[in-house]
C-alpha cells in the first residue's frame, strides 16, 4: 500500500519535471527555431536523466 503511494508520488514528481523540461524546450524552440536540434538533444538527455531517477526510485521502492 505504502509502496503504491510512494510510486504515485514519484510519478507525480517525475511528471512535473518532464512537463517543465518539455514546456521550456518548446518555448526555446519557438523562440529560436534554428536551435531546435540542439534543444531537442539536450531535452532528451535531461529527460533521460530524470527518467533514470524516477525509475531508480520506483525500483528501489518496489
Amino acid at each position: 500500500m505504502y509502496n503504491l503511494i510512494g510510486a504515485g508520488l514519484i510519478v507525480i514528481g517525475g511528471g512535473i519535471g518532464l512537463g517543465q523540461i518539455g514546456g521550456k524546450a518548446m518555448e526555446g524552440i519557438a523562440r529560436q527555431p534554428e536551435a531546435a536540434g540542439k534543444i531537442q538533444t539536450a531535452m532528451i538527455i535531461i529527460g533521460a536523466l530524470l527518467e533514470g531517477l524516477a525509475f531508480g526510485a520506483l525500483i528501489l521502492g518496489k
Partner: protein
Amino acid sequence: MKIAQKPIKSYLLILMALTTLFGYAKEPSQSHGEGEKVDTPEEIREYIAHHLKDSHDFHFYTHNESGTHYSFPLPVIVWTSEGLKTFMSSEFHHDDAGHVVVEKGGVKLTKIHSKIYELDQNATSVNFDEEHHPTNAHRVLDFSITKSVFGMLLAGLLLLLGFGALARGYKRGHVPKGIGRVLEPLVIYVRDEIAKPNIGEKKYRKFMGFLLTVFFFIWILNLLGLTPLGFNVTGQIAVTVCLALFTMVIYMFSGSKDFWKHTLWMPGVPVILRPILAVIELVGFIVIKPFSLLVRLFANMTAGHFVVMSLIALMITMKEAFGPVASTGMSLVLALFISVIEILVAFLQAFIFTMLSSLFIGMAVEEHDDHH
C-alpha cells in the same frame, strides 16, 4: 537526391508494414497461455509476468483443444554440483512448476518459473514453502541458450550480416547500395550526433566500436521485442547490467589525469570538503550512473511490453462488458497505437543509452585546460 530517397522510403514502408503485421499476428498467440486457457485477470497477470522473464524454449502457440505446443526447444547448459550438464529443454515437457524432474548423471533438475533448480541429493520431488519458494532445491548457474541468448545471437548475426554487407559494399564504390543505404546514415548519425559532440573530435575514434555496437545491438533487440517472436532481451536485468557495466569499465579505464584529479582531489574547493566530494563523485561514477543506465533501459522495455500485453489482454477482460467484437476491436486499436509508440521508444532508448554512455566517456576523457 530524389533517387536516393525513394528506396529508403520503400524500405521504411516495408518495415512499417511488417511491424503492423506482426502486431496483428501477435494477438492469437498472446491470448492463449502455455498449456491451459488464460481467462481471469490473475492468469493474465501471471502470463504477462511469465513472458517478461526469460524462457528455455521458443514457444509460439498452444492449441487449446488438443493441447499441442507449437514451439521448439533450446539447449539447456547448467553448471551443477556434478559439473556441466547439457540437454534439450524439451525434456521438461513444457513444465514450469517443478513437477517434471530430469535426472542427468546423478543430478536431479527441475524448472520453476523459468529458472532451473537442482534438487537435494535425497529428494525426489520439490517441496514449496508458503511463499512458493522451493525448500529442498537450489538454483544452478545457468548458461543455457535461452530465448534471450538466442535473441542476442540473432541480433548479432543480423548486425554482422547488415554491416558486413555495408563494409564490403564500400570496396565496390563510394556509394552503398541496397540495405547499406539505410544503415549508412545511421552510422553517420551515431558518429556525428552522438560520439563527436560528446567525446570530442580528437578522441571519439577509439570508442566508436563500442558505441556503434551497443547502439545497434540495443536497437535491434528492442525491435525484436516488438515482433510476435516474444523476445524481451533488453527487458532482462542481467542484459542491461552487463551493458551498463561495460560502459562503466570503459569510462573508468579511459579516464584522463584531469578526470581523476577532479574526481579525487577537486581543485578550487576547501581541503576539508575534498574527500567528501571525492566519495560523492566516485559513488556517482561507479554506482549511480551505471545504475540509472541499466534501470532506465530495463524499466522502459519491461513497461513497454507490459502495456502492450495488457492492452492485448483487454480483449479477454473486457469481453463480458462490451462483447467480443468491441473488446477485440478496442484492444487491437490500442495495442497498435502503443506498438507504434514502442517503435519510437525502441529507437529512443538505444539512442539515450549510447548518448549517455558517450557523455560519461566524454566526461572521463576530457582534459581541462583551465587551471582553477
